[in-house]
């Protein structure tokens, strides 16, 4: 095989393609083939075994799970290098034509949760406009396009926005008191199903198109997607912070997640270019704050140097 083969998350895909393209242009190795298909497929293919007809690197928008590592090991894929390539910011944006928003997690919880606490009692959520949720917000119909349950983004959205909002708004306490700890967590994260919260199983372009046909909608996007579509989207602040690579890198903007690539160590030295590609990926010129990835919207890892070191040393996971 002449090219490195990479598969996995569609969130990591654009970054990988940028790197692959540059890698192909600037080295003697072939341009790696980057497949999309989701973190799950990527890791599944990664863990299918060692050999020419398995992939070398998996893109993932989340950390590999223990069960997956076990499965990998069962198929003979034992030495896995985990490489964190940076962070992905998750932003809330609406149509340019509409009002602008300054949200807090609690707003989102109160707007989208199936059950909310009103006057200390748990009631079904009937809020119809953002102003009902928080008088400071615009009086615009609630219509949120949130990532479907297949997206890793949804996990972050659930944890960092909805669960956070549940806690911030004090609903968690009430839920815990009424339902017990476990049920309370579930109750926090159950979204309403009356059409105000629309799951998007497609990608950000679908969300964008839906905002196009329903201009009241507010969508959840990746930072880089928003940055490429600033002419049609306006971004909302979260807890007063405007999302940008800087605010996310500094940790001010709360909603973000790390992105990874997993490298099959057994392929290093067998498939030409595997290690070189990984090194190229996290090099300063590429993944640094001034590199093309950052320009595209990837939040550069503040600890990039240690990542580079780990790749150079071929450090594997334990």
């Amino acid at each position, binding site marked *: *095989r*002449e*090219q490195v*083969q990479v*598969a996995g998350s*569609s969130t990591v*895909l*654009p970054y*990988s*393609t*940028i790197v*692959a*393209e*540059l890698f*192909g*242009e*600037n080295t*003697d190795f*072939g*341009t790696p*083939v*980057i*497949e*999309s*298909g989701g973190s799950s*497929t990527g890791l599944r*293919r990664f863990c*299918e075994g060692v050999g*020419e*007809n398995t*992939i070398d690197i998996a893109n993932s928008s989340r950390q590999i799970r223990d069960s997956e590592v076990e499965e990998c090991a069962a198929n003979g894929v034992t030495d896995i290098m985990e490489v964190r390539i940076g962070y992905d910011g998750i932003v809330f944006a609406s149509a*340019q034509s509409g009002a602008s928003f300054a949200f807090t997690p609690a707003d989102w919880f109160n707007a989208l949760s199936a059950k909310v606490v009103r006057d200390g009692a748990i009631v079904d959520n009937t809020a119809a406009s953002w102003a009902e949720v928080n008088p400071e917000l615009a009086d615009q119909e609630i219509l949120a396009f949130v990532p479907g349950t297949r997206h890793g983004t949804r996990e972050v959205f659930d944890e960092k926005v909805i669960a956070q909002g549940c806690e911030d708004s004090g609903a968690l306490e009430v839920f815990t008191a009424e339902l017990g700890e476990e049920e309370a967590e579930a109750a926090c994260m159950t979204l309403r199903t009356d059409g105000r919260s629309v799951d998007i199983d497609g*990608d*950000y*372009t679908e969300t964008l198109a839906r905002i196009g046909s329903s201009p009241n909608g507010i969508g959840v996007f*990746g930072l*880089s*997607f928003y*940055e*490429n*579509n*600033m*002419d*049609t989207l306006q971004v909302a602040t979260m807890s007063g912070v405007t999302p940008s690579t800087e605010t996310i890198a500094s940790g001010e903007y709360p909603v973000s997640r790390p992105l990874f690539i997993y490298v099959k160590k057994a392929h290093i030295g067998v498939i030409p270019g595997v290690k070189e590609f990984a090194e190229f990926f996290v090099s300063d*010129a590429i993944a640094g704050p001034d590199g*093309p990835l950052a*320009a*595209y919207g990837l939040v550069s890892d503040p600890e990039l140097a240690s990542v580079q070191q780990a790749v150079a040393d071929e450090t594997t996971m334990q």
Partner: protein
Amino acid sequence: MTDHPRATGAKSLYVQDARTRRRNAAEKRFRAYGLTAIVIACTMLAVLVFTIVRDGSGAFRQTYLSIPVALDAQVLDPKGNRDPAEMAGVLTLSYGQVLDRALDAAVAGLDLQIEGLESGDIDGLISRDASAQLRDRVLADPDLVGQTVDVNVLANGRIDGYFKGRVTMETAARDANTSPAQLMLADELVKAGLLVTRFNAGFLTAADASDQRPEAAGVGVAILGSLYMMLVVLVLAVPIGVAASIYLEEFAPRSRWTDLIEVNIANLAAVPSIVFGILGLAVFINFAGLPASAPIVGGLVLTLMTLPTIIIATRAALKAVPPSIRDAALGVGASRMQTVFHHVLPLAAPGILTGTIIGLAQALGETAPLLLIGMVAFVREFPAAPPEGLFDPASALPVQVYNWTQRSDPAFVERASGAIIVLLIFLLCMNLLAIFLRRKFERRW
């Protein structure tokens, strides 16, 4: 017999009786329904094709920038020995700087006054792909270093979008990736003849490009990939499908066993295409050890997916051939095989061809099964000529469409529609022969 009621009450044939009028009205209505149905179908086709062409025709035109570039030996060949191997150590980033400098100089030479124009705006006019193009050119001919050459490179996607109406001054004001000043500069450069919009052959020949370079993305690899896959499908699916149908329809004894096969085939048609991807991954890649992302695997999977369509269509067509024709042939001592191949098959050919057209159309446009066998991928390198090329990684036209519709840069919308146009043309070319043959074989008896 004498007391039969009369069919027609009216004496004159010129006058239609009430019942005939009613029946004729029903006839007219029925005809109108039929025509309406066709008009609906054709209108939908027109609407869809119109939107595709409207959105996609832009992909066939592209804005180019032509400037003289001084190839600075200091930057490009620090050691000064013109050794291509050493010069390869110079990254595209450096070439980018060379280009930026050249453009700055060119703009400065024009002596323009544009408010708010920053140096970043000027550099932003050039596509990120340009540096790679220049590097390739220099590495191919190291003696160029030190000279000043005229280069013709792609302009950035936003600038291109400006000339296609996608980007306006208004949106540029909101967009961090461009600025009104940059657009004004672009206008000036057009006047100066440095920026031109012309036919974009690269769209058809170039490989895919990353998110940052929509202007450089093309369907070259995808066309090859689709072509290879369709070759495999055509070579396998049509003969296998027709052979299986002939066996089932003409030879197989009517038994539970053939019922089973029949239901089975009908059921395969209902299997979601992604499941064929799962099958392909399990059987062709993991079991048979064929390479992933390769057109051969894609072709095999699509063959399995298309087979039911072809078989169902072919069986229906075979069934429609009147038995008297078979009797006639058998009666002069033709074997069943001869009867089928000499008489039945030609008469069933229109239906078989229709099944082939529809099956291939489906196969050509399908993405989901390719997802799991690694063909929904970013592939920059062209596969070799067949048969080896069948085993090289390649993309496919629907994959390119699928990928591009997911990209964040709005410039890819146009590319995706452009790829759809290419796909439809591909489909038409593929079907043309079939349609011609079908007309030739069509007859009533």
